[in-house]
């Protein structure tokens, strides 16, 4: 799935940041290669946003270092800003400006001459181009923010919950755009709570908990190493339905499955893959959406 050529676009070494006595990011080291999508997952307060802030030059690391596109995040943030796009989790658009005015403002900040219409069409926003942002739904605003992050055709995209609040069709449209950008060789640093999304889009996934990266690998490897595949059997009973989950690697499972089959009251039976959520829970004892 990875289409990298080995060039490191994002690199960190012992990256650390504290808010007073609270260690938000604790000596994390990782790298992201060109054309790679890295899913950065963790519960609230785990250090995801602080990491993104350091990588995008909004915070200066207190220890360690970070580089984006070869530029030091502490020393050369403006060189980084020229070539990245950031989609924030919170809605941060100018409410009194129209969609077009919001986007043209950012085009002007980059000193570019970009036709925004094709971008608007890609996320189905053309209809609202002259509407003030304050009149748009949260989902539409999210789409505007996503378009804004791509306005300078960035080499690296930092996307923080890019599909939150979107209907399934719009969310899928955005996921497809992310994959298209990846195919063009763009690097994506994706922060999300949505396990399905991370699983579907990410080449690799980093789990961060209490400021530390506790696992970093492809979703498949993580699930294989740390997850548990199961056989899920749903049976009809007098009271309705009853469900039983059997671990596939358990030597007792074939015997129990046979017993259930012989009862002839099975409604559904299927194998179930481990999820990233389960892997995270196994690693940290915490749920991702805490």
């Amino acid at each position: 799935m990875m289409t990298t050529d080995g060039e490191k676009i994002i690199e960190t070494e012992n990256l650390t940041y504290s808010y007073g006595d609270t260690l938000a990011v604790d000596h994390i080291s990782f790298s992201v290669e060109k054309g790679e999508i890295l899913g950065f997952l963790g519960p609230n307060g785990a250090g995801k946003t602080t990491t993104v802030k350091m990588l995008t030059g909004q915070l200066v690391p207190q220890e360690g270092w970070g580089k984006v596109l070869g530029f030091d995040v502490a020393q050369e943030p403006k060189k980084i800003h020229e070539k990245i796009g950031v989609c924030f989790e919170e809605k941060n658009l100018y409410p009194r400006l129209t969609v077009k005015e919001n986007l043209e403002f950012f085009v002007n900040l980059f000193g570019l001459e970009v036709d925004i219409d094709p971008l608007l069409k890609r996320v189905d926003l053309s209809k609202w181009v002259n509407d003030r942002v304050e009149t748009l739904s949260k989902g539409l605003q999210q789409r505007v923010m996503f378009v804004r992050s791509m306005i300078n055709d960035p080499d690296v995209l930092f996307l923080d919950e890019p599909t939150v609040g979107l209907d399934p069709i719009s969310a899928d449209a955005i996921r497809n755009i992310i994959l298209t950008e990846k195919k063009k060789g763009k690097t994506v640093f994706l922060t999300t709570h949505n396990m399905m999304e991370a699983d579907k889009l990410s080449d690799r996934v980093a789990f961060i908990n209490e400021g530390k990266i506790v696992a970093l690998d492809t979703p498949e490897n993580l699930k294989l190493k740390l997850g548990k595949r199961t056989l899920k059997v749903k049976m009809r009973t007098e009271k309705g339905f009853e469900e039983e989950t059997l671990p596939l690697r358990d030597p007792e499972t074939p015997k129990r499955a046979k017993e259930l089959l012989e009862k002839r009251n099975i409604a559904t039976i299927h194998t179930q893959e481990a999820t990233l959520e389960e892997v995270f829970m196994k690693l940290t004892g915490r749920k991702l959406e805490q």
Partner: protein
Amino acid sequence: MKASCIKAITRKDAVAAMRNKLIVLGLFAGVIFAVMYYVLPSTVEETFTVALYDGSSSQLFPPVSELEMEGIHIIFFTSGEEFEKAVEEGDYVAGIALPENFDSQLLSGKQPTITLYFKSDVPESVRTSIEYFIQLTIEYVALGEQPIDIETEMLGEDMAGKHIPLREQSLPFFLVFALMMEMWTISTLIVEESAFGTMRAVLVTPASPSDVIISKGIVGIGYSLIVVVSILILTQSVRGNLPVLFLGIFLGAIMAVSMGLFLGSLTKDILGSYIYVAVPMLILILPGMFIFVPDISLSIVKVIPTYYLANAFGQILNSGAGLVGVWKDFLIIAGFDTVFFVLGVYALRRRFS
């Protein structure tokens, strides 16, 4: 700093401000001030009440009923003590004291000495009128030209030539008020960037905090000029030394912008910012307000930076002063501007970083 970023942010702020109803309402302050200007009296008091003391019960000096003329109302005193008290307390614009041997001096052809007491703010023209009135009265009594000696004593600081209609006196107040209102515009633009989270989005583009600060300053100065110039035009007060007047307006606008930058860095809450701005704004418009309560000692307001602004505007607009007359005020304002600007930029950079 990037010129393209400054241009983009300035343009965006100008459009965003024009869609903020309160800021647009602020632009119309010029009209409101102009209406208030025209409501105020355009002329000075023209009837003067004068105290007359005649300790010698002169037979020659005409009775009050014969002396009163248009614009002068006379109150006669027979007690020197009461006369002095009334004049000192400022109940009368002038006091006329006849000498004790007035009749005999006049009859013997000698030169009587008449003492005139004036309140400090009596205009020179009124003093001249009263001196002329005395001269006429004596000529009337002496049935011809009679040399008299008039001694003038000022009660308080001589304010000759400074008696200006309230309408014109109020102009510096309106100008200072309009300029200081822009503190609010700037602080609102900054607080909104924080409240809407847009500052984060701007700062991950090529734009720097300096670009943002300069752009807000340009918008603030632009809005100040619109309001102040509209006041000057609507009140037909575009007069005096215009380059000096606009230098003063520019210095005042920088003060408002600098204060706005500082105040805007104090909070992320839009409503909270109104309170943060209201208190300093009230203090800063105070010097201009003192024209309505002249009895309060001006030395108190000299610690307020805008005193020098109001004073300079008054001098330029109402006394025709040029740079020579107001350079000290401008120097003090520039000093305050520097302090406020450094403070504002420092606070804002801390906020943005």
